[in-house]
């Protein structure tokens, strides 16, 4: 009950805040896939020039939320704004211009596998006619790759790169048009801790050097604490916590504490115990500190 009250209060706070000074805002957005509600009346505003991190367990709607910000998905109900302009009701043709203000790093990188790194980064530049001179394009691609520490990898193909390198090339492509907003979908997933930290440092570097508004979706708490100015936690399609790292660490909501401490909840444990395996003892949570 206490948890529910907290959720409601945070929700009201967010709705009042939406539109106030945000470059991006979603207002009362609900998204359904068939009977399944993924986002449930979510409202939030993203502050310009800051790094906002969206955390939450797998399947809670983080990726769906970030895809709404660039209108790759349209809400079932509710509104999405960019720079005060409503974008969720625009045609795909009108959205093409809006999307040039964004850079999006997809979870798997989504590099065009038939193109080399050079061609991948050149793609948004040529498609949007930003630079016409061939030498300038070459120089620009070189600069973008240098920013992510991969200058010299121009002629490599995505298949020849490691997971971390692929994400960095994808990041170079995302910043090719000097976007105002950078959206990252699980940038450190599938990477070892060192490569994850390289990506975290890159997020910070790009935010510092380009002054972009950054939204990062992750369930990597070390990454969230390191890069976030503000952390938002989604749970079952609703925002259950919203504040800086300290606020999240001390948040009283049990779901928030379970998530940030990486603990399985009693409900999940009960389900596992009911599944009837030979040894039920294995489902007692281990206490590593004991």
């Amino acid at each position, binding site marked *: 009950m206490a948890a529910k009250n907290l959720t409601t209060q945070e929700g009201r706070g967010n709705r009042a805040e939406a539109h106030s000074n945000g470059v991006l805002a979603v207002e009362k957005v609900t998204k359904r896939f068939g009977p399944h509600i993924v986002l449930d009346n979510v409202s939030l505003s993203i502050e310009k020039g800051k790094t906002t991190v969206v955390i939450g367990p797998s399947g809670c709607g983080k990726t769906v939320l970030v895809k709404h910000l660039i209108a790759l998905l349209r809400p079932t109900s509710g509104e999405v704004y960019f720079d005060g302009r409503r974008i969720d009701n625009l045609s795909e043709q009108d959205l093409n211009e809006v999307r040039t203000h964004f850079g999006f790093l*997809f979870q798997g990188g989504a*590099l065009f596998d038939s193109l080399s790194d050079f061609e991948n980064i050149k793609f948004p530049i040529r498609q949007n006619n930003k630079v016409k001179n061939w030498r300038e394009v070459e120089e620009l691609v070189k600069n973008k790759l240098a920013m992510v520490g991969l200058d010299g990898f121009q002629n490599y193909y995505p298949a020849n790169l490691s997971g971390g390198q692929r994400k960095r090339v994808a990041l170079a492509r995302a910043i090719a048009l000097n976007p105002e907003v950078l959206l990252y979908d699980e940038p450190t997933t599938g990477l070892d801790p060192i490569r994850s930290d390289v990506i975290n440092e890159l997020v910070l570097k790009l935010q510092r050097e380009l002054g972009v508004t950054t939204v990062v979706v992750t369930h990597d708490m070390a990454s969230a604490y390191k890069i976030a100015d503000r952390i938002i936690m989604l749970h079952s399609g609703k925002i259950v916590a919203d504040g800086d790292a300290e606020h999240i660490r001390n948040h009283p909501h049990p779901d928030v504490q379970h998530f940030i401490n990486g603990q399985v909840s009693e409900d999940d444990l009960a389900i596992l115990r009911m599944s009837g395996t030979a040894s039920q003892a294995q489902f007692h949570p281990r206490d590593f500190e004991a």
Partner: protein
Amino acid sequence: MFATLGARTIAGVGNIGQFGRFCWQTMGVCLRGCWSHKTYPLIWTQMHIIGVRSVPVVMITGAFVGMTLAVQAYDQLAEMGFEERLGYLINVSVVKELGPVLAAVMLAGRVGGALTAELGTMNVTEQIDAVRSIGTDPISYLVAPRVLACLFLMPFLIIYANLLGILGGYFVGVVQFGINSWAYWNFSASGVELWDVAVGIIKGFFFGGAIAVISCYKGFTCKEGAQGVGRACTEAFVASFISILALDFILVVVFKAIYSTFWPFKSLIG
């Protein structure tokens, strides 16, 4: 049971609507793409993949069709003493029907499957979303060049299939069965009018467009995972095959009506 039937009907109508919208968008983008120099390199690349690389397989198909027809028809014609008219029969069959339809079926199998698999993989690995996120219309970048390449090159592939079909028939009829060469060519020329050749080529535009649009649509809407891509490829081929046969029937009826209408005026023209 009624609920399932209703849900399937609604889903079916929804799919038809979605496909109709996809076709409409593609048509608009293709018309614009024809005049945009930015599209030309993309069309050129696709023409090489779709057209040039399909030439050998289409030629082999055409040759075997012609040879098989000759073997099948020779005995029956010889019984009636009409074996010298073998060229007539082969030309009419190949140019009017078998050449265009079988070349289109080969293209549906070779190119349609590849298009669906390529775009389907791009879809499930979020590459199509990546194109959109960059501010580029995926239909204009991915679909239009493929559709235009199929549209422009299918008629040429049909010409190759027809040519090899006739030569295949010649090889079996003249070289193997010893029909008079002059008779073969003479009857071949008398059996087929320019109109028949033109109809076969016009059919190619429709077949090429249908194969490309269906294959691209199936790729764009394929479900997640390897199974989803595999299923989309199968569905694309089946839908393309049925469309080719259905379009062939419709076009034959339409062109026959046009021919019958203008037949009386033919003598006035030529």
